[in-house]
């Protein structure tokens, strides 16, 4: 067990032992003089605080853009951090990303620019297949001045950056120094990051009030927005059972603490429609930290991932002191921000079956903005048609009730019916009974009702294609 944070900031090894664990990396970095890291919102939505987080791999560091405003300081343990101050090109010249941003009129007021620079730096270390990948990587950085066009052009022209050979040694040092569990205490607050599931469960049983931390993209808001202080935090990010994806050939078991970005890299061919939806969960910075476990655990009425998991027939593994139990995704959330999880249990994994041959899956998200917005309404459908009739349908909605719901009445109304326009009306009337939307800042109950209904129509159009015209905006 260790009691100091070991990290590497802009190439220098650093240990931290006296800063409270609820201090965010943003505040700490700024206090240390890394003033390129800016606070624009404190909620992971603007990207001004973006830094590159280096995760040790077999041969170096994997650089990921993260929002430092939602990174509890102990989350830097065993990781390297790069800020704009630490970027350098050959011979001490500006780094190619910095040069391209400066020459390409990618900055105006400059406040968001270091964050963009770090997102572009991370992008330059990963595959950039097309403009969609560029938009994905920039969606978490807001710029109010440029209109983005010059920054997008910088991204298109970025060279593919090879890993810096010196990073292997940094990775090795971090691995060696941060192998054991971390138990970090400062200012009367404690942060425990165990390295096995039994330890995690034992700690959870002993500290039922501990804040359970996976990626922190939601939990961090309790500190930065609601100004609460956690006495005890339990981080699951180092527990091997919770941080791996297992291929069962026919299904995937996705650890509850696996970040979305890693899930996406595995499911993009296996579940392309789910991948499309998950690419709209937060933005890159959030997806590099956020997890299924966190999304399920906070039990939001919208729950970005849950409607899709319900429709896909996913199950959730819950780790209890006496072993694993499994519940259907649709039963996990029991009410407004309430789950089945007992005070001594942890979400262990999501068990995601492959889509059976002959079935199709669609996930729709409707929001005011395409990227990094919370759904006003989301809907997921799994459908099997046989001889023009509905042989099986599973439908789930988010944003239309106190919790994500399965639309049983809709399903029953469609079961066995011909998949024709004439069958829709009855089914849509049934759907009205499945949902109970409310007004909020994202939309009125009436709009949500209408959209939920119309998304069934969209499914029908997409699956029957009665005209040669596109029926959704993505096809334009």
């Amino acid at each position: 067990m260790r009691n100091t944070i070991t990290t590497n900031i802009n190439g220098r090894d650093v240990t931290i032992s006296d800063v409270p664990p609820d201090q965010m990396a943003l505040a700490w970095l700024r206090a240390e003089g890394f003033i390129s890291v800016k606070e624009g919102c404190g909620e992971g939505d603007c990207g001004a605080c973006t830094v590159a987080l280096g995760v040790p791999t077999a041969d170096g560091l994997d650089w990921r853009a993260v929002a430092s405003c939602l990174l509890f300081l102990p989350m830097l343990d065993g990781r390297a951090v790069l800020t704009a101050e630490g970027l350098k090109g050959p011979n001490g010249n500006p780094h190619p990303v910095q040069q391209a941003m400066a020459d390409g009129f990618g900055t105006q007021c400059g406040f968001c620019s270091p964050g963009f620079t770090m997102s572009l730096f991370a992008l330059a270390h990963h595959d950039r297949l097309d403009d969609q990948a560029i938009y994905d990587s920039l969606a978490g950085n807001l710029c109010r001045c440029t209109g983005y066009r010059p920054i997008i052009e910088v991204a298109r022209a970025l060279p593919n950056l090879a890993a810096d050979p010196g990073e292997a040694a940094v990775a090795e040092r971090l691995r060696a120094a941060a192998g054991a569990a971390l138990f970090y205490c400062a200012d009367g607050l404690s942060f425990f990051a165990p390295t096995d599931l039994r330890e995690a469960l034992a700690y959870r049983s002993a500290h039922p009030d501990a804040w359970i931390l996976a990626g922190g993209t939601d939990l961090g808001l309790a500190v930065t927005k609601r100004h609460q202080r956690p006495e005890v935090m339990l981080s699951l990010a180092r527990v091997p059972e919770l941080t791996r994806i297992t291929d069962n050939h026919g299904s995937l078991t996705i650890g509850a603490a696996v970040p979305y970005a890693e899930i996406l890299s595995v499911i993009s061919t296996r579940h392309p429609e789910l991948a499309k939806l998950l690419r709209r969960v937060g933005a890159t910075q959030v997806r590099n930290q956020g997890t299924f476990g966190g999304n399920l655990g906070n039990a939001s009425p919208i729950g970005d991932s849950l409607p899709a998991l319900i429709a896909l027939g996913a199950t959730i593994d819950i780790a209890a002191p006496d072993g694993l139990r499994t519940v259907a995704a649709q039963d996990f959330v029991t009410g407004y921000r309430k789950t089945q999880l007992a005070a001594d249990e942890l979400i262990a994994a999501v068990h995601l079956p492959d889509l059976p041959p002959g079935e199709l899956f669609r996930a729709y998200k409707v929001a005011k903005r395409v990227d990094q917005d919370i759904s006003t309404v989301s809907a997921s459908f799994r459908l099997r048609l046989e001889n023009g009739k509905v042989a099986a349908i599973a439908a789930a909605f988010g944003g239309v009730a106190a919790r994500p719901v399965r639309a049983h009445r809709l399903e029953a109304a469609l079961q066995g019916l011909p998949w024709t326009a004439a069958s829709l009306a009855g089914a849509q009337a049934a759907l009205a009974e499945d949902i109970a939307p409310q007004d909020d800042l994202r939309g009125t109950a009436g709009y949500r009702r209408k959209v939920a209904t119309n998304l069934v129509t969209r499914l029908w159009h997409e699956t029957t294609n009665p005209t040669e015209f596109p029926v959704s905006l993505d096809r334009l």
Partner: protein
Amino acid sequence: MDTATVGQSFAHDSAAHHVDGKASFIDDMPEPRNLLHAHLITSPWAHARLTGLDLAPCLTVPGVVAVAAAADIPGLNDIGAILKGEPLFPTETLDYVGHPVAAVAALSPAAARAGAALAKIVGTPLPPVFDIRTALEREDYVCPPMTMLRGDVDKALAAAPLRLSGETEIGGQDHFYLETHIALALPADGGGLHIFSSTQHPSEVQHLVARLLGMPQSAVTVEVRRLGGGFGGKESQATLIAGVAALLCRKTGRPVKLRLDRDDDMTVTGKRHSFLLRWDVGFDKDGRVEAVDMLLAAGSGWSTDLTPGVVSRALSHADNAYFYPAARIRGLSCRTNHQSNTAFRGFGAPQGMIAAEAMMDDIAHHLRLDPLAVRKINFYGPGRDITPYHQTVEHFRLPAMLAEMEEKADLAKRRVAVDSFNAGSPIIKKGFAVAPVKFGVSFNNPAMNQAGALVMAYTDGSVLVNHGGIEMGQGLYTKIAQVTAEVFEIPLNQIRVSSTRTDKVPNTSPTAASSGADLNGMAAQQAAEIIRGRMAEVAARKFGVPLEDVQFKNGEIRSGNYHISFAELAELCHLQRVSLSANGFYRTPKIHFDKETMTGRPFFYFAHGLAAAEVAIDTLTGEWKCLRVDILHDVGRSLNPAIDRGQIEGAFLQGLGWLTMEELVWDKDGRLLTHAPSTYKIPTARDLPADFRVELLANADNPEASVYRSKAVGEPPLMLAVSVWLALRDAVASMAPPGARATLDAPATPERILAAVEAARSGVR
């Protein structure tokens, strides 16, 4: 005109340091010894009589050092920018949720926040007003109604062959500059104050802080190096933040920093005015307007702030590019219990233009004509060139620009293609619209059209420029440096522009109204010319040639075979005791405006722009996508084409955000629910049109004698985004029966678009 530096696309002067972290903002500065952090105590009610304020509990929090409220203000408790009556801290009523009533200073931001939370505000709630319609019924205005009048409107309306009236509501907009409001106040020598403020108007901060604290203006210095975005939100609003920091600094004798976090910034500070627009128009069968009667009612929020200016500019842009033979345009500034709405890029002009543009579309739909044809027939032109404020429109470029765009962007063909797509497509409908922009350049208030600059050359040939303008990302410092380099004919890297300070250039106007380069550039040019003149005399004497034979070129001063470097000549001037420092001063010529009759020539010239937008909407959900936008914009002879293009693109996307996705939502008690980016959505990179073609109008020297014949560019392109809103209306209108129009308020969120689609389907006319 042959120029060496002006007209080139030099990079922003801070670009390299924007990306390596060395370009520092106020919160990035090393913190001074003994610094205190301030936090505001704000009203929990939208409207209440303030009956008591107990700040003693705040002082019980460890680390809290001081509190301040109205009673602590030694001078005049008023920070009204145009009219008096806006106390820094209120003493009688609380007028919106978030209204600052006092402040705490502590050793850390957390202690200040914790202290502020313990303040006991006692109040008696009063009935609040949250919407423009209610304020109109109550005739409760923050400033007197205004009317712009030309011709006998009632008679012309009655005589017109056709008549139509309409109404639309346009929401407000948060500035969402990435750097939130901040001020750092330090005690200065001799009892003075030095304030670093995130303000677009350092002189106003200086003058009002001096008045607040009962100090001479000369004892208060305000300094600004750069803002992390302003967009108008840091014009009048910055005074509150700086005022509180200064008051606590004065009270404690210690440096005080007040930085609002995002939630507080959005909850406390004012935004773009919402508007209710009504029009009654008479026209002929071709769609030619004969008379217009308009009402532009602004949601002003709780106080006057800059509302008179905003409404005045709205009225003077409700014609946009169109001639109204008779016009009555009334402006009402409605008081509501919301944040005090303020300057925002466009300053009322966008809302005024929207009234004109919505009206043009309605006429076209009513007559089943192409909306572009109706626009063309109403353009200003020879003999049809007097505005509702009686200024003659000169050098009107839009007809020629439209002809150019019709060809380059295939407007006619695309109109047909969109209509034919819509005839077949069941779910997705496209919309297409062309919107012109004519924007008057100059502050509507003639007195504000002045600027000063201080230029200093040193003996090594380096040059330092100070001026009254604020760098907030728009590249003003770069343009000023280019102008100065041009006068001296020296390389741009010999020029440095240093932070804007009230002790170098006094009594400046805000950097607003797109005036930054126009005014300060002229002042800097003039100052540089004074020095160049003195240097030329020294050179002429040295060379023994007539003054007119001395030339500044490529960093040298030459005459025939004689030459000397700029640095050598500067050194020589110093030895000969010739001053290398000069003040420049500029005031815009030709302008005048009578506020009572609302007539005159408020604008030195007009900037023009044209945008064609093509969009698609999903009629099941109201989601939409911007498919293509073509822009042709008139920046005169550009001082820096790349920077100007950046202004155009950035303004366009900001306008697009305002009109489509940026929705301010308050709850029934007047609490702003959208106070951070998780709930308030500004455009991201993906929201840029997939196909975005931006061109600067070529060979477009400003016919008026502006700085190197350039035109202002800060605000005008924001209004190009009206094309997107019109295109969305056009897509909705495609579902309505012939002759019916679309109704779509802004922001056109998916919910509003879907509602408009349903209304169009049901055939409401």
